[in-house]
């Protein structure tokens, strides 16, 4: 079995306890306008262009069988993304890594042997593997095989999910992980639809059910100015999480605009928007509110 992976990041220390390797699976069910990993959203492979690395040798133009790459008046490389069929020849030809394919198909074995390389660090630190995305449950069978593989090899796992999946997939996989990192955006459903493209009802339902299960859950909240950092939303989030009784830990992830640059690199900037980071004072106030409600709060996961 293969899955589509867009990154494997070692020494990840903010996606669960200890030193971890995070496996980023491609594809997400949500379309959050602030997404900090825009290259994770679509399930298919994508072509990423790094103008800063480009030496203007134009090897990519020569390599492209579809003539989808050209140079503009200033000599900069331009990709016609409608013509491009993502064959990857330009990335192969570019020795400067200015053209890169995002999303490669890897077998379960390949991923496992890669993540196993840092076993000594997991054992020392109480870390392990985190499946992230996108949402790893978009590739449910692959994610499940990875969780099984890790368990067989004695490595602990975490799953970072947006919580939107049907047919009991989430429950089955959640039971196989040692930890769930569960993202919450905003409690108001209209807003949730506006900013993420989907209703929060199934997400909240899923969390209610999972919270009654055996796997530990840490909630994570990307904090975006004017979207979900208001008192009302924070109050409702706290009320909801408190009502679940089993969730003790909350990660606050302040928004940053780094995702926009990545969106530009894959030619999808029009699908995202620039937001603002809440002020330090505001972030601290939100953290304090959660702490007061009895949660253990960590900045950044």
């Amino acid at each position, binding site marked *: 079995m293969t899955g589509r992976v867009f990154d494997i*990041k*070692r*020494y*990840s*220390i*903010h*996606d669960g306890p*200890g*030193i971890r390797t995070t496996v980023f699976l491609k594809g997400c069910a949500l379309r959050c306008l602030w997404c900090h990993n825009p290259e994770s959203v679509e399930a298919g492979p994508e072509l990423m262009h790094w103008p*800063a*690395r480009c*030496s203007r*040798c134009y*090897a990519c133009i020569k390599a492209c069988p579809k003539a989808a790459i050209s140079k503009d008046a200033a000599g900069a490389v331009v990709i016609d993304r409608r013509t491009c069929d993502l064959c990857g020849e330009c990335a192969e030809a570019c*020795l*400067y*890594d200015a053209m890169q394919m995002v999303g490669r198909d890897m077998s379960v074995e390949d991923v496992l042997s890669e993540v196993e*390389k*840092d076993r*000594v*660090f997991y054992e*020392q*630190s109480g*870390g392990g593997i985190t499946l992230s995305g996108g949402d790893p449950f978009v590739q449910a069978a692959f994610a499940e095989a990875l969780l099984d593989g890790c368990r067989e090899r004695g490595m602990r796992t975490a799953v970072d999910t947006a919580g939107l999946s049907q047919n009991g997939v989430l429950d089955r996989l959640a039971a196989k992980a040692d930890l769930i990192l569960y993202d919450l955006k905003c409690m108001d459903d209209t807003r949730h639809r506006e900013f993420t493209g989907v209703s929060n009802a199934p997400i909240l339902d899923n969390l209610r059910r999972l919270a009654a299960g055996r796997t530990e859950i840490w909630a994570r909240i990307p904090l975006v100015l004017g979207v979900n950092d208001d008192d009302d939303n924070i109050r409702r989030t706290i009320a909801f999480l408190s009502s679940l009784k089993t969730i003790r830990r909350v*990660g606050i*992830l*302040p928004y*940053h*605009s*780094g995702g*926009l*640059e990545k969106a530009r690199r894959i030619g999808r900037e029009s699908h995202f928007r620039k937001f603002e980071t809440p002020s330090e004072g505001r972030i601290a106030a939100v953290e304090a509110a959660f702490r007061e409600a009895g949660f253990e709060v*960590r*900045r*950044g*996961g």
Partner: protein
Amino acid sequence: MNERIKKLRRQTLEAKPTISAERAKLVTEFYKKPETRGLSTPMQRALAFKHIMEKKSIVFNDSELIVGERGPAPKATPTYPEVCIHSLQDLRYLNDRKKTAFASDDEARRVYAEEIIPFWRGRSQRDRIFAEMTKEWIDAYEAGVFTEFMEQRAPGHTVLDGKIYRKGMLDFKKDIEAALAALDFMNDPAAYDKQEELKAMAVSVEAMVAFARRHAEKARELAKGEKDPARKKELERIAEVCDRVPARAPRDFWEALQAYWFVHLGVITEYNTWDSFNPGRLDQHLWPFYQTGLADGTLTKESARELLQAFWVKFNNQPAPPKVGVTAEESGTYTDFALINVGGLKEDGTDGVNELSFLLLDVIEEMRILQPSSMVQVSAKGPDSFLLRALKIVKTGFGQPSIFNTDAIVQELVRQGKSVVDARNGGASGCVESGAFGKEAYILTGYFNLPKVFEITLNNGIDPRTGRKIGLETGDPTAFKTFDELFEAFRKQVRHFVDIKVRGSNVIERLYAIYLPAPFLSVLVDDCVKSGKDYHAGGARYNTNYIQGVGVGTITDILSSVRYNVYDNGHFTMKELLEALKSNFVGYEALRQRVLNRTPKFGNDDDYADGLMKRIFEAYFEAIDGRPTPRGGSYRINLLPTTAHIYFGKMTGATADGRLAGDAVSEGVSPVQGADRKGPTAVIKSLGKMDHIRTGGTLLNQKFTPQLLADDTGLAAVKDLVRSYFRLMGHHIQFNVVTADLLREAQAQPEKYRDLIVRVAGYSDYFVDCSTELQDEIIHRTEHQEL
């Protein structure tokens, strides 16, 4: 930090390094005496030492508690013309250079011109050494294949153990007298030599005692004239301390520190030893005095802290003796590598971390001065709290303390034949070198430029920089059909230059044994007294010569590139590669980018490259390890560069890993700068494949931004990185916390900093991959967190 220490710290930070001709003058005066000539060499050396210790100026700095300076003022640095002579140009150059200048006045230059240079010209050790070196040695030395430590500084690489806290100089004298009385002139053909050496040791001990007494007298004299009653009392106490130590064993914490300090001054006045001597396991040595002092009320934690801080300042007052000739231009530093060891194991194998270990870390953090340098020994038995405390200091970003694996050090020393107890009482010194403290002469003989040797191999024995043939003709590289043939040629070339180096070192070692024995140092290192042999002549219990390999990362990436691109995948031919290197990649940019971005590199946990590192390690190890030295010890390898990787880079043309001519080669065992792109765990895994246990030390540098260490999560993760590296039996790791300036440089030259990880927000990313605005924000944040 109290007012006194603030003042002392300010004094040392503001003191300007100068050249002092005092010692040179005294030693010359002594050697000019007609009666000197009739003496045996050891006695000449001992009496010269005595002459200096009896005549040199006695310095008391305002408010200090621990007394004694090497020169006539803080940072007034003596010279050692019997080892090497500074020319007038050297003195001018040292005076004028912008960085690490040593000022010299007209009087010093006059003394040099009129007395020192005329007397010692042709008679210094440096003159003898260069006269004795073979043409092939000179050729290789000038080409930058290796350096030679002993050409201008004496081989003093050792560290003290606990003996001076249990015995005074007068006790050592009794031991010396007993050894003299036991000499067997009937059966021991070396009896006379031993007699002269032992007599010399006895004289040097007297010299040390006399030096301390002079301080006692001076303290009493100052006390008489002192108006401030508190200071008067201190001076009287100092007089009492100097009367007691080092003549007799110290009785308390203060005396213990002062005893060490006098001994330290003795060692660094006798010679300009490399890698200045240091007390080594200070928390272990002082522990009994600390406990007793606290128990009987003569010491408090705060008074202990003040004494330690006063002690710390003394090291910073002694910059490294400045070099001469080209070396003066190549390496500018004040650091003399006095590396205080904190933590580790006790000799019974139990955890050695104690309350004093933590107090020493406080001192290191508060003092924040260049010298002494400091390190923590982390054993598997040591507590995490100790390592975490050390990392909190690391995070403040002044490169200290460095972190060592006690368990690796012990295994390394035991493999070399030391007893397990001697190994546990040892540690690391200088940069990273393992040693059995107080019992071993472990001499660094010089750095060895591995990438240069490969360059010579690719040119069939010729150094392309000069066009001179200095190596073996190992064959035209375009004729090699397999990578193995090429590797074999490289292996032979390594062996060839190691042979040249070893031959040279074996001669130099004898020149020191014959012409410049070190009787005072010999008293301090077991078993010189017992054997009646000098430290330089094999008197120490253990004797080791190191040849320090430099450029492990670079040479691995070079071989990986050649193998991957020429032999395994045919991306280009050997002929094309040679052309590209010759033209410093001009016109070969695509080839260079392939080599930089599409070729396996060391430091990424990639067996293709890491396997080659192991092969190179074996070739280097086999060429050196176990070869006999004249002192009766063995040659060993270690892998560290100090700053030689910059000099070696200057001497080496473009290399097959994409490095441009003249750029520095990789440093320590760290990957080539920017070549490790999979994060710190991959670096540590790659390094974990190296057999550190068969070295005498390796040096791994990791760069971190302060944000990665900012919170408890970050600190705990770094603690676990270190623990994991040590489980893989890594020897040493040090964290350089990057500055905003370095980030700006990375912004301007991203290709060199592709390894630099920064914490963005809830996650970390490669700095050079972040958008410019994000980079600016991180720079701003880093600046904000700097002190």
